[in-house]
């Protein structure tokens, strides 16, 4: 089964003359274990599509399926459950909780999912070790470099073994070398863990690393 599928997906903003169709009847399918880059100039509808498939925004019409679940039909509570269990998010600006340590940041989605504290800490430490930060468990984000923060964010995104990881310009705030390290790490997680990765990106290296690219322009896939 496809990890992610959209059916006639439409998102419109405004109404009447001022109406803009940011996403215009998009049909796409992303298989489990794929590494896909969503590519398009700013204003192309890339972010809108990204938000729709991540359950961060609701479509005007059409459907988004994650696994067999149509997320466009879910209630707020169900969306929260889905975000927690099925989707991992990675942001351009890392978005770690500034007042918590690396370990606490990674353990949080596990705790929200209902995992016991000791187990959460254990799994969080394991994940941080996997992303190369085994010695930085108790550092706060302000004590970590950008690249290290993004590694923590990747570990956090993987915490609940999501079916899909969404990365929004994950290398956008990093220098080239650090960006490459993050790309390599995502690629490695994709290959060794079988994690499905979908990334909205401008970064040519990221596009190159992806197995497939979806080009979007004026709200349509080209």
């Amino acid at each position, binding site marked *: 089964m496809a990890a992610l599928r959209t059916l006639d997906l439409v998102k419109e903003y405004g109404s009447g003359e001022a109406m803009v169709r940011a996403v215009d009847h998009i049909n796409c399918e992303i298989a489990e274990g794929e590494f896909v880059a969503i590519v398009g100039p700013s204003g192309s509808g890339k*972010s809108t599509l990204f938000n729709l498939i991540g359950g961060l925004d609701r479509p005007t019409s059409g459907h988004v399926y994650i696994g067999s679940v149509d997320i466009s039909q879910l209630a707020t*509570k169900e969306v*929260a459950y889905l975000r927690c269990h099925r989707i991992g998010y990675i942001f351009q600006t890392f978005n770690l909780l500034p007042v918590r340590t690396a370990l606490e940041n990674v353990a*949080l989605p596990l705790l929200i999912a209902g995992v016991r504290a000791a187990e959460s800490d254990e799994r969080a430490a394991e994940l941080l070790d996997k992303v190369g930060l085994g010695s930085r468990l108790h550092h706060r984000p302000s004590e970590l470099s950008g690249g290290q923060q993004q590694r923590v964010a990747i570990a956090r995104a993987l915490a609940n073994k999501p079916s899909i990881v969404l990365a*929004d310009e994950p290398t956008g705030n990093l220098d080239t070398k650090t960006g490459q390290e993050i790309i390599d790490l995502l690629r490695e997680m994709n290959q060794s863990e079988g994690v499905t990765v979908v990334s909205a990106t401008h970064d040519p290296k990221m596009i190159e690393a992806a197995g497939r690219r979806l080009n979007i322009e004026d709200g349509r896939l080209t």
Partner: protein
Amino acid sequence: MNPLQIAWRQALASLRFRAVGHGMSVFGVILGSGMFGSVQAYRMALAPMGLSLADSNRLQWFSWMAALMALVGIGNQFLLSVTARFREIGTLKCLGASNQLIGMIYAIESLMLGSIGALIGGVVGPVLGSMIAGRPSLEAAPLSFAVGLSIAFLAIWIPIAEVMRLPATSALRAED
């Protein structure tokens, strides 16, 4: 771990590492419960010495007005602190936190800040007020503490409603 425990830990961490913003909120509660308490203590101290009903009512009015002004001020301060944390809230939503959990985090924070402020203001205010009246007493302290805590608790509701309406996409906005 249940949501209350998660919220408790998050609130505690936030209190430890956001001293300045939280300091302002605590100060507001101290002022509110302190002003309320000092006027009330003054009134209570003078009551047995033949304070007229009209004067007593006037002092009641002053004290509740002070509490109301503090409520507005602290409400503003809370709203500001929530606005500054939109990205964090969006991130929590992306991690699967329910509105209920996020609301709990803020309710716990405000109650803890409220307790600290109400404890200080609720003692200092009544002591000063009753001293001015010439009869030092802590008679007004329990009520002042309760008023201070209530101010903090009431002031957080509008910010919490704001937080619940916030879309998870707030996590994605690039500006800080």
